[in-house]
């Protein structure tokens, strides 16, 4: 279990995605959306617009981007 992203499979092709934006988004999905909460004691600030987390739509967008990249790679 050396990597939090030991396996991420996308689409019908078995693809290994490591250290990718997908992995970061999966991490954000977990650490920002889930976990124990001490009510009223979550205090975060968002300064970097690239990392504003607007929900799972971001993840889906990234999956689609990844698909597009994959398709281009296959065409080439």
């Amino acid at each position, binding site marked *: *279990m050396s990597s*939090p*992203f*030991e*396996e*991420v*499979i*996308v*689409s*019908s092709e*078995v693809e290994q995605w490591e250290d990718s934006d*997908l*992995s*970061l988004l*999966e*991490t*954000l*999905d*977990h*650490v*920002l*959306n*889930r*976990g*124990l*909460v*001490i*009510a*009223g*004691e*979550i*205090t*975060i*600030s*968002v*300064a*970097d617009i690239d*990392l*504003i*987390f607007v*929900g*799972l*739509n971001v*993840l*889906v967008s990234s*999956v689609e981007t990844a*698909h597009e990249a994959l398709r281009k790679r296959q065409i080439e």
Partner: protein
Amino acid sequence: MKLYVYCLAEGVDALPEPVNGVSGAPVRLLKTEDLSVLVSDLNADAVPVTRENALGHAAVVRSILDRTTPLPFRFGTLVTEQQLRNYVAARKPALETKLALVRGCVEMSVKIIWELSGIEQPEPVESDQDNKQGAGATFLTEKRREILGGELMEEEAADISTWLHETVGGLIRSEQVSLRPAEKLVLSAAHLVERDKIRQYREKISEARKDRPKLHFLLSGPWPPYSFANIELEFKTPFGVS
């Protein structure tokens, strides 16, 4: 000075190795109520959401995952030491129940995405009557078509959820499933899987998804059990533990 809190664990007397967390601060163990909490000192009122901090939080929680299964705290948990001690003391029975649930397990995450073209949508019906009706009636007709399409997608998502459960049900201890959490997501599922069944679980998913060629799968893990740590009571006490 406040404490940034990463996770809570049982049976941990020392960190496996020195680790730095959010803002690069060194992580230490705080023992309370026979439990260990991984914390770091932070002189701030809020934690910036940055790539480094998010990954730092995840890395600290993960650092003890090989040794035990911790209960992760959500990113951004900043408390005083007294608040943390009060929290653990007040929630101890619930925390112990959660620790027993996740003991020996990890979380696997499955997100299933559909191509909207793969779902049959009711065709728009154009008739002479439609052509004669006003803008309001046309709007209502279109709205009805959208609702019918939405209902079809709901049914399809429920069917896929049942299929997924039947596929991996024998390999999971617990699950959290959210149906259609976003427009293009069929579902987002978190499965609590015993460590010695991870390989079987992966093989099962890899094999089963061949039956659903129109769906895209995003499988990730193993994760600490972020999705299984919440204590329901926490959301009923708006002002927390003082």
